[in-house]
């Protein structure tokens, strides 16, 4: 792509799904557009491009973020995990299997964001991070999260098909069967 004169490309090194990538990015480019258009990693979805729907959720140094609100230039030296790094057909993550088992999706467009968010949620719960539902009583493991907790912690991911009960069921299932290490 020709470099625009007023907006020179910036070199960054980002580790994406365990692989170090040297990229020249437009400083205006979001991490999301860089993944989708620059790297053909279309697993992270663009739903609103303003941090409201969660379809673009990725892990940035292990924390869930909306990739549409992160500029790729700020990710130099950081690690990004997308849904492709969570699990692919043939070797799915237990939470992905649980989404299929509990029909936690319909059209599938918000689903990768839900999965990445859910994987992060399980890890957050395992390390005792509280939510607004339970600010005083930090959970000691994901297995003890109530449905109210699960839904609160998943409310940054909109599912317009309305698969929320299935999403909660999948998370309950995964929380009780997945050892925290793999979350």
């Amino acid at each position: 792509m020709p470099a625009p004169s007023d907006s020179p490309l910036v070199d960054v090194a980002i580790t994406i799904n365990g692989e170090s990538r040297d990229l020249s990015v437009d400083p205006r480019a979001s991490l999301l557009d860089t993944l989708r258009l620059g790297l053909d990693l279309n697993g992270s979805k663009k739903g609103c491009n303003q941090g409201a729907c969660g379809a673009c959720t990725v892990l940035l140094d292990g924390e869930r973020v909306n990739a549409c609100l992160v500029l790729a230039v700020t990710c130099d030296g950081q690690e990004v995990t997308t849904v492709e790094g969570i699990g692919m057909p043939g070797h799915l993550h237990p939470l992905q299997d649980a989404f299929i088992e509990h029909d936690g999706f319909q059209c599938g467009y918000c689903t990768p964001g839900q999965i990445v968010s859910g994987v992060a949620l399980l890890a957050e719960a395992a390390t005792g991070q509280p939510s607004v539902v339970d600010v005083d009583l930090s959970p000691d493991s994901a297995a003890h999260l109530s449905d109210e907790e699960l839904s609160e912690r998943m409310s940054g991911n909109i599912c317009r098909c309305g698969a929320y009960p299935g999403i909660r069921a999948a998370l309950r299932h995964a929380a009780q069967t997945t050892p925290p290490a793999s979350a």
Partner: protein
Amino acid sequence: MTTTQTTPIIGQATRRVTGPLKVSGQATYAAEFSKDFGPELAHGVLVTTMAASGRIASIDTEQAEAAPGVVRVFTHLNAPELPYEEPVMRPQVQPQVGDPLRPLQTDQIFFSGQTVAVVVAETLEQAEHAATLVRVTVDEAPADTNLHAARQRPEADEEQDTPRVSAPKKPAENSTMTGRPSDVTVGDPDAAFEAAAHTVDLDIEIKTLVNHPIEPHATIAWWEGNKLTVHDKTQWVDNARHKLALAFGIRQEEIDLKVDALNTAKDAVESVLGIRESSVRVITPFTGGGFGSGLRTWPHTFLTAMAARELDRPVRLVLTRAEMFTSVGHRPHNLQRVRLGADADGRLQSVIHEGWQETSVYEEYTMNLLNTTRMAYATPNLRTTYRLVPLNVQTPTSMRAPGECSGAHALEVTMDALAAEMGMDPLELRRRNNATHDVQGTPFSSKHLAEAYDLGAEKIGWADRPLAPRSMRDGDDWVGLGVSSTFYPANRIKASASARLLPDGTAQVHTAASDMGPGTYVSMTMVAADTLGLPLDKVRFALGDSDFPHAPVHGGSMTMASVGPAVRAACQAAVQAVIELAIDDDASPLAGASANDVRLEHGELIGPGGRETLMDAVRRHGEPVEATAASGPNKLQMLMPSDYVFHSYGCVFARVRVDARTGEPRVEKVVAVNDVGKVINPTTAASQTIGGVVMGIGMALMEEAILDPNFHRYANDTLAEYHALTNRDAPEIEAHFVGEPDYELNPLGARGVGEIATVGTSSAVINAITHATGVRVLSLPATLDKVLHAV
């Protein structure tokens, strides 16, 4: 021996075959075919107008054109004039009156948010930046978006050239029961209302709602000579192909014959033409929701194809979330007045339902606002009156149960008001008025609504519900239980499919249908596997390619009822072709038998002299055996003469809590029970129902596109401020099914689930809030400010 299937498939809870692709993000949606192109792919970004009415005075594109990476800026001044030929017969998804918006073909502005330019650049960032540099000035004319004021204007007369309130000019096939007639009167509803022992009279308002699939609408288009290929987010690849061909004037004879293709198997048309490939092809294997927004082919799709042709390179254009409010239709703002009169026993004596609905100033969008009222309950006297009010908004479109959802809401809230007026249990009022036929006397094909009431009442605990409102309190919450009936017409139209049996023991089944989420992939795989007697994993089903055999629109809850029988017919035709081969093959145990004496059972061909598996016969043949077949009526079933009217029925029960300190309503539990005929896949049917309930709760409590009365523009055009339900807002939801296969409608007995699922939830929730608090919210959504004054 090849594998066969000996246990039933249809009716068994079955996982989606698309599951592994979807949970790993590997299902490819329209915009994501960018992966097939290198830097040759250019990026388009729209420029929209703030003004809501008038003419473009000037467009300054100089700065934008000079911006880095910009390839071209298209406006009405430099865009090529395109033919946009009129189809011989407009599809039902397109308004029958008025002209569709033809982008960049005029300087006229009809609504705020209308596209006035497209900037195409090498990268998305460059295009987005350059789009901000285009300067548009409009000679503004007065705009009108006030439905309340506009509906008071006198009705239009034929001479008038300014938009006025009017009856639908073409009420769609002259059927008073199934079309969209201006007025239907049975008996003497006014006299009966005056004479009724109990009456209620409510004015109900439903604000603008927006479909908002999470996948934004998107198009990638490219040309190879005169051949156009498009990836477009759509619920109907065949119509997108047809519309694009008309817009660009491609191969006129093909276009005319494609109109017939709506009524004929596509391969028959292509054999007439002697072509196997069309010069327009639309390929969309995955559609990330739509709920109606993908029925029509919208301006941005034509613009992307136009830009690709002019620039001779592939172009990709994705709508922003803000553009999703003003580019792909919406559920129209409407006002309704419902009057019900009943005798002392609660039997309806008079039903008068009037509706005023917005449309645009350039097209007449009509929907089935009042159909439900004409079939829902038994009454000797009825009138429905439907009026359209043109405003400076984009043309509305179908949003999940278009019309029915809004009309049934008003009817069902008024039914509850009648029950309250009588001091009668609202479920009992509905039972007493349960109808066996529509208001004109045609019987229903198969109806199990009474069983649905019984099951739903049991599951929600209705028997313990006190009759009086404000009688259940739990801590800081008022608690209430509400009920609503649900209705949705069952439909069917001709569809076609191909089945190809391969020597490796697998089958490929193709049809130009879509799957926006209900599970078309898995349910059609099930129908094919069941028909062929093969395990599910031996069937490869594909859809979403306009080169596949013709399928109707993926809407109106008719994909299963229409495409399902076509898949079955194609598989049966392929089986017949194999039988013909086997009986002529000395190596087959069926050799010499008459084709009529051979039958397929659990994947085995059984003849008088022996048996072999279907796929063994194919393997010995050594080449694929293929057949194409069509099934279903040439016109929508609801427009065909019939001894029956076809509907689905059900009920929704909701339990709500309303915070007595803040008035905030929250739904705690919903039970939905539907009679939809045969349920093909209980897993996905339950998910469709749950999803419909979720959307219905959003309609009841929070969804509203708020029109700024001064600027005529949606003030909350983001997903942060247009509140769709989140996980925390979604309660426990039970989905149950009653009834029996409806073989009067189609050989599978399935009537479809998608839309009835979203009818009734909003009214059940509003009725539950009334039971909790005593407040009957008449204008949706029931935000806390509308409840607080009374709690």
